[in-house]
Every structure is written in structure tokens, then in C-alpha cells.
């Protein structure tokens, strides 16, 4: 459980405030109620602690029971009225006018109407959504959501954004733009995700900027959401980021490309194989099978096999095997004797995939190689023969 600084401060402040209130209650009960009645000071203090504790327990007890009961009542009420609401909403989305009926239901069951309307806005597209959005305006729900977005409560803000993203931008675009630069990343991410589900022209670069500048979690989540737009982003937005020279942004973009696993025409990846940052070299190598094969590929992979960083070398070994670069055999044999077990294992697997020559080398290494090389060779050969489940992922 990791919280942001502002949340941590809020949690500590609330804890201290609660503790102070508790102490104050004990002192007050002691001073104003028990001291005039009980002679012994110790006894009076002990009794005031007991009274406050008993009261707290009773309140907790009552509160948790009431909450549970309220939830059950709410659920059963929703189960009762929701079918009728849904029916009216379906008719409304189909172009009939049932606003008055819905408004009447809303007066008695506002929560249920809101939930059903949101449910419908998620499902319906085109003219139906437009009609339902208009209904949301009439029911003053959009105003309510815009108000909720200004709340300090994070959950409420996120919920408001999720709802506002469902209606056409002309009704809520300004609020969504504000939400994209919310100080809290979870709200930004939430907004971007909901915008992607209903994307309008010109919003794609804005959302991708969040991927590039956000945390790893944001990157991972949005990368999946943006998968349908990979080709579009690969035309201008991603090449611009790869050529930007900003290491964090470049690494983020390479991560996204890896996550998509889609073949994209991005020659900008090749210069990154010689980047000063080993993390970028590693990420660029990893996505090499996903970009067009250029003449310098073999030379770059052979160069990477001599990289000073173990992880980069190990990845280069895998890529060499993936592309079947037979010129890499001498380097792969050297990597098989690498002190890093991961590189040695990768080299053994690479050799196993390079056909008869690689196979012969592994057999020789099993007999005459060092202990690490021999064990890596043996494992690679055995895996090649029998184990489909344990393939080396690139």
C-alpha cells in the first residue's frame, strides 16, 4: 500500500484529529460528568475511559450494522425499480419521449436512475447516446457530476470523470480537459482511460502524452487501451517521441511498443541501439523483431553482443537466435562462457535454435565446457527436445 505525499499528510492529520477528539471526550466526561460525582480521582478517570470506550464500541456497532442494513435495502430497492427505469431509458434512447416518467421515478429513486442511465450511456452509441446525454442534462445529472468533479474526495472525482466521459464532449469537454491535468495521477489515468473508450479527434496525442510522462502503471494500462490506435500513433506521434532525445519518454514509448507487440514501420528504433542509456539499448533490442529489418540489423546485433551490460548482452543473444544470425556463432560461444548465468543460459538456448552448428557446439560444451556452460548447454538441449512450456520469451 503506497500512498502519495498529499494522501499521507491527510491520513496523518485525520489520525491525529481523531486521537485528539478521543482524548478530549475522555477529559470532558471526566471533568464535567464524573469528577463532581466520584470522589477518587483515579476511579473517576478510569470510569471516564470506560464510558468513552463503551460509547465508541456502541457507535461502531450501530454504524456497521446500519451500513450493512442500508446496503441490503438499497440493493433490494434497486432490484425492484431498475427494470422499469431500464425500460424507459431504452425507449428514450430509441427516440421516444419518456422524460416525464423518468423524472417522476428520479424524484423517488435518484440513485437508481443515475446508475441505470450511466449503464445505458456505456452501452449505447450514436443518436441514442446523444438522446440519453440530453436526458442527463434535463435530469441535472451533468451539473451534479461537474459539481462532484470539484470535490476533494478522490473516489468522487474519479466517478464524476467516468460519467462525464460518457456524454458528448460539447457537454463535458472542459471538465475532462481539466481532469487530464488533475494533480492526482489516478484521476488523470482514469480520465484518459474513459476518454479513450469514447475518443474524439485530436485527443490521441494528449492521451499518449500521459503514457509518456506518467508512471509505469499508467503506461501499462494506457498502452493496452491505446492498442487499437497503434497504427495511427505510429505515423507521427511515436516517431516524434523516439527522436525527441528525452530518455524517459523514449523508454516509455519503447515499452508501449513492446506491450503492443505489433509490427510498426519505425526505423527510428535503430539509432537507439547505440544509445548511451543501457535501459534504452535493452528496450530497443527487445522490440527489434517488431520493426522492419534493415541492412544494418546484423551489424547492430553483433555489436550488442559485446555490450558491457549483462542484460543487454543476454537480450542480444536472444535476438541473434530469433533472427538466426549464424555469423554470431563465435560471440554466442563466448557468451555461453559468460560469468552471468542469465547470459550463459540465453546463449545456450540461442545456440540450440541455430540448427546443426549450434547443436554440435552445445554437445561439445556439455563434455568439455566449464560447469556453468555445460549445465546451460545440457538444459538447453533437454528443453529443445522435450519441454514446450519453458520457452524463452523475447
Amino acid at each position: 500500500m503506497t500512498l502519495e505525499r498529499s494522501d499521507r499528510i491527510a491520513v496523518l492529520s485525520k489520525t491525529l484529529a481523531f486521537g485528539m477528539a478521543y482524548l478530549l471526550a475522555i477529559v470532558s466526561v471526566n471533568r464535567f460528568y464524573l469528577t463532581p460525582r466520584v470522589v477518587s480521582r483515579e476511579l473517576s478517570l478510569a470510569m471516564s475511559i470506560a464510558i468513552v470506550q463503551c460509547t465508541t464500541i456502541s457507535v461502531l456497532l450501530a454504524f456497521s450494522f446500519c451500513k450493512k442494513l442500508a446496503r441490503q435495502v438499497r440493493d433490494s430497492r434497486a432490484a425492484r425499480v431498475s427494470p422499469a427505469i431500464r425500460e424507459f431509458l431504452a425507449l428514450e434512447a430509441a427516440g421516444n419521449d419518456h422524460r416525464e416518467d423518468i423524472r417522476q421515478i428520479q424524484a423517488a429513486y435518484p440513485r437508481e436512475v443515475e446508475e441505470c442511465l450511466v449503464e445505458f450511456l456505456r452501452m449505447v452509441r450514436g443518436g441514442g447516446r446523444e438522446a440519453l446525454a440530453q436526458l442527463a442534462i434535463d435530469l441535472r445529472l451533468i451539473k451534479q457530476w461537474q459539481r462532484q468533479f470539484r470535490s476533494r474526495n478522490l473516489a468522487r472525482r474519479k466517478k464524476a470523470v467516468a460519467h462525464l466521459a460518457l456524454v458528448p464532449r460539447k457537454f463535458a469537454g472542459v471538465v475532462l480537459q481539466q481532469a487530464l491535468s488533475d494533480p492526482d495521477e489516478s484521476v488523470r489515468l482514469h480520465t484518459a482511460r474513459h476518454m479513450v473508450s469514447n475518443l474524439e479527434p485530436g485527443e490521441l496525442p494528449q492521451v499518449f502524452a500521459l503514457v509518456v510522462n506518467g508512471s509505469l502503471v499508467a503506461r501499462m494500462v494506457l498502452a493496452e487501451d491505446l492498442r487499437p490506435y497503434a497504427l495511427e500513433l505510429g505515423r507521427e506521434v511515436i516517431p516524434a517521441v523516439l527522436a525527441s532525445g528525452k530518455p524517459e519518454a523514449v523508454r516509455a514509448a519503447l515499452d508501449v511498443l513492446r506491450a503492443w507487440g505489433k509490427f510498426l514501420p519505425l526505423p527510428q528504433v535503430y539509432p537507439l541501439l547505440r544509445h548511451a542509456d543501457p535501459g534504452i539499448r535493452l528496450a530497443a533490442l527487445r522490440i527489434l523483431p517488431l520493426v522492419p529489418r534493415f541492412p544494418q540489423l546484423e551489424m547492430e546485433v553483433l555489436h550488442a553482443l559485446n555490450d558491457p551490460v549483462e542484460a543487454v548482452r543476454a537480450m542480444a543473444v536472444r535476438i541473434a537466435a530469433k533472427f538466426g544470425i549464424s555469423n554470431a556463432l563465435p560471440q554466442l560461444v563466448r557468451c555461453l562462457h559468460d560469468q552471468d548465468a542469465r547470459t550463459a543460459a540465453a546463449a545456450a538456448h540461442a545456440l540450440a535454435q541455430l540448427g546443426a552448428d549450434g547443436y554440435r557446439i552445445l554437445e561439445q560444451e556439455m563434455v568439455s565446457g566449464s560447469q556453468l556452460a555445460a549445465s546451460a548447454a545440457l538444459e538447453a538441449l533437454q528443453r529443445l527436445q522435450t519441454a514446450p512450456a519453458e520457452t524463452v520469451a523475447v
Partner: protein
Amino acid sequence: MTAPPVFVRGLYEAFEWSMIFYVSGSNAVYFFLMVLGFFALRSHRARQNAEARAVLLNSPLLPEVSIIMPAYNEALTVAQSVRSMLDLNYPHYDVIVVNDGSKDDTMRILIDEFHLCKSTRRIGNAVTQPIRGVYRSRDPIRLTVVDKENGGKADALNAGLNVARSPLVAAVDSDSLLEEDALLHVVEPFIENPGKVLATGGIIRVVNGCSVERGRVTRIATPSRVLPLFQTIEYLRAFLGGRVAFSFLNSLLLISGAFGVFDREAILEAGGFATSTVGEDMELVVRLHRLSRARKTPYLIVFVPEPVCWTEVPESWKVLHRQRNRWQRGTVESLMAHEKMLFHPTFGGPGWFALPYFIVFEMLGPAVEMAGYVFTVAGIFLGIVSVKIAVLFFVVSVLFGVLLSMSAVVLEEFTMRRYPSIKDLARLLAAAVLENFGYRQLLTLWRLEGVWDGLRGKRGWGAMERRGFEQNVQAA
């Protein structure tokens, strides 16, 4: 009866005040932790995004995890546990079962159930008891079984570490069941704070009373028997109150051995699990704090309240006694091994708050509480302590216990809400009251015995009598 000498009265008065000071202090600290836990949990819940989590599951950027399951004489539950582990909702993970020289059919069951054959998989360098063989399944499942000579749980975990290749390793008891999404939840802090998180732990819940089918908990309910019900309260109190708060303060000293995820490199750098203690889980976490603080590298050790690991708790007093004795010994051993951290400026929160808390309240607490009972009774007989004050003192102390237990139940109800019916809530609340009359005092006695055994250097685990998940449910 003659009046006691003046020095006895003086002694009593000093004792009385020190008791009042101790009880008030401990109550204040427990209360602080519980309230802090409550607000931290609510803040954490507000940040959660279930939809985003579902998307994360598709991401190839999720780190790989090796689940290590040490097993010793687990013939009754091992097949089901392994099956449940192989069925988790996480894209990149493998399972490593370490048979720690079981004397029963554990190994044979594993071979038969999962079609194992010998493997040539490389083994790392950590020193363990001799390995008899490494096996893998002929089926397309990511399962490795290490068969080794008996060396204890820590030794088995180290053997698992030797075989593991993923950057993250999860230590899971073979008598536990993980919920489908548990692994994803517990890995999340590692991706939220890349390179900073060394270990994360999940919440452990009591499976007794729940329905289990094919290694999955299908219906959640409170146990009908008193002993597991009391333990349910204890688990809620410990995890939702204490650990959430300690995690908030980055001073979490214990990640339960039943379910924790670690950065593999960090454990290997720290020297693996210590085989010299029965509290290898706590000892490792304290060591990770110590090394990271000493190196002045930013780090986090995190408790995650969502992931649920279901575990079978003892239903007999005898087994519970052995378990608590072992836990207390583990605590004593871990604290003694790292006493140099105490109030040392280098060790920050763990050294200034968590370690003193564990020593004063967890290690010495049982002794102080017992001394309180003995002295009060003696004082009444000697006419030094008034019955009225003694009774009131006892009532306040019990009420405070009730308050803490109730708060834990309410915390559960306000945040996680895993027990669906009002009947369950009523049972938990009743148990929160009743456990303070007799059960808590008995545990205090056992913990005291555990402290004594720990200080004497007593070793050994003691056997846990398993009933099997499904048998357990039928009986409950």
C-alpha cells in the same frame, strides 16, 4: 490480617503506576495504529481502480514471478494447493514446489498428479541441504518440483530461490490457497514504484468455515467453531490494523510467511532466508530494513490489504498452543538478532518505532500482563489493592481489547467487506467481545512461554495437524 510492611506498599505503588503507564502507553499505541490503519486503508481504497487492474493483466510489461511453495508432510493438501497456484490470474509466473524431505506421500502425490519427470534445470549458489532431484511436469504447465533433504522451511525457501529465475519470488505456504487475483494485487507496488519495493505482503484470512472447491474458495463465511472464529478476529486485527499502519510508516517488520512477494535480487544480496530461526519471515524483513537503511538506499516494504491468501487455522488447542509458541519464539529470535537497530539513528522508523514496539508490546507484553494479574490478585489478598480499583482496571483493559477487536471488524466492514451476511457480521462482533474473556489471557500465557523458550534458544516447529480444505469445510 496484619498490614504489609511499608516497603511492600511502596513497591506496590511503584508497580501500580508502572502498570498504569504501560497499559495506557500500549493502549494509546494500539489505538493510534488502528485509527491510522483505518484512514490509510480508506485512502488506499479510494485510489484503487479495478478496471485498470483487469487491463494490467494483459500487459506483457508485468514482471515475472516465481511462486515458491515449501512442503513438508503436506500429502493431504499439496495437490489441491498446487492446482490452485497453477490457476492464478496472472500472465507470467511459474510455480516451484520444494519438498523438504517429507516423510509422507507428498513427493509421490506430486509426481503422480502432475506427471513429473527429472529435469536438468540449473541450480543457483545459495547453500542448502542436499538436493535429491529437480523435476518438471511433462504437461504444459509451469511447475518445477525440488526434492531435497529436510532442512526446515527457510532452507526449502532458499532451495526454491536457487531454482527461481524470475525477478520477483513469492513465498507461499503449501497449505494456503491464493485468490485468483492475489498475485496481481501483491505485485502492483513493484510496478507502482519500480526498483524501490523490496517486499510486499498480502492479507491472510481464515479458510475454516468457507466452501472450497477445486482449490478455490467459492463461498466466504465465518467459522462456526469458536477457536477458528477467535482467530479470525485476531487475523483481522493484526492485518487490517497493525500491518496497514506499519506499512504506512514504512516500518513493516513482518510479511507473513504464508504469502509474501520479494525482489529476488534483494533477498539474494541479503543472504537468503535465515535457517537459524523459526521466524524466517520476520527475520528476513527486518534484515532487509537493516541493510537498506545502512546503505541509505530508498526502499519500501509494503503491505497490500487486497490480496487474499486463505489459510487453515488450528482447530485444536494443542496445535494452536504449538503455533503461538513458535510465532513468539520467531519474534524473539528476530528481535534479538537485530537488537543493534534499536534507537540507532541510521535505522529510522524501524529502529525508533517498530522495533521498540515489538520489543515492548509484543515480546515483553505477555510478561507484563501476567505480572499485572499476579500482582493485582496478590495485592487484593494483602489488602494493598482495593477490589474496586482492581475490577475497574480489569474492566477498562477488557473494554479496550473489545474496542480494538470491534474496530478491526468495523474496519473490515467499511473497507474490504468480504463477509457478506449480517449473520457473519454478528458472529464476528460477538467473537470480538468473547475472545477477551479467557482466550486472550490463555494466549498471553502461551506467548509468555514462547518468549521464555525463545530466550532459552529452543528450536523446532511442531506439527500442524491438517484436515484438508474440503474436509475442513464439511465439518465447519
